[in-house]
């Protein structure tokens, strides 16, 4: 058996000390290249579970938003911007009418 010296590791207790310079920059700059997924939501419809199960092909589900109402742009379930629904190169598009607020 080899001679291995084993010692106990002891963690010394930190005492409270006065604050110094901030270590992590509190700026979105550090995450500006992180990609996020925005979802466009046209509106909601509230029906009963029974009605939901009764939906068939060609059923029309009317939403709670007027035809010209702005579309919500959601980030992680929260509305972060609104805009007008447009068509861009055969794709749906949103022209921003309410920009993300800085908070």
């Amino acid at each position, binding site marked *: 058996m080899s001679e291995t010296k084993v010692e106990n590791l002891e963690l010394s207790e930190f005492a409270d000390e006065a604050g110094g310079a901030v270590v992590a920059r509190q700026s979105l700059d550090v995450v500006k290249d992180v*990609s996020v997924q925005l979802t466009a939501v046209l509106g909601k419809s509230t029906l009963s579970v029974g009605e939901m199960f009764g939906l068939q092909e060609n059923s029309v589900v009317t939403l709670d938003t007027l035809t010209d109402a702005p579309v919500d742009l959601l980030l992680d379930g929260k509305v972060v911007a609104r805009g007008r629904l447009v068509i861009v190169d055969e794709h749906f598009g949103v022209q921003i009418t309410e920009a993300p607020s800085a908070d």
Partner: protein
Amino acid sequence: MAVSPFRIYSAPECAAIAAALENALCRWSRRWFGTGKLVLEFDNINGLPGVLPGQLQAFGSDLPHYGDAESQWCTLLPDAAARDALDRSLLGTPGGAQRDGEEGSFLLALQADMAAQCLVDIGRAFPGEAQPRAGQELGAAQVGGMLRRAAVCGSGWGLARLRLGALELPLLLGPAVSAGIVPAKPLRLLGALDSARQAIIRQPASLSAALGGTALTIGEFEGLRVGDILRLDQRVDEAVSLVTPGGEVVASGQLGAREGRKAVRLGEE
């Protein structure tokens, strides 16, 4: 027929298992113990009819070891999945069998006198519980009174809960027993399921109509200004999804209008 604890038996299969058990075991126990009473321990129900003589053990002394710590009740269904499977086949709903205490234990009573004798012996094994006296004859009404909950399936098989003080045991009853003593309550059970179903159907379901989104970086997102145009991933000829708050797509269809509001006509495309 091979018997597995992990499948649901139809009523005819239950009856076939019962008949096989009854034929094989009643003869066997009459021959050895002079009674039609059976209290059996199964290590594993797989291939049950084939292993009967060798594997099954009868507690054949005058005071059977019903359910003490060392010996199990006759273990017909060794785990919760199998128990739920039996519940479903008998009651049409899982969770009818007990959850506490005697895990995976069932008394299997194939004849009325056998069920009564089981109760007598249980009374002996738990003397503090003021259960039937040894040798006392139990009428259908008395046995029925000890059953806290029971139901009978179409084949005549019954599943009951037997209450002994703090102890509750599931009791599987053969057709001959359940016909005489089980207070049949399948209609009440179905009624409860039906009202649960009605309550679910009336629940509001909120669906959002969503377009596929677009990915952009946080930097681009911060730079968004009024008037900017975001092109979404979704083409105008692609369907709009109706999604639950949990994000599940329940239907999709074409975006349009109805009475001045946005609307979705459901369809395949």
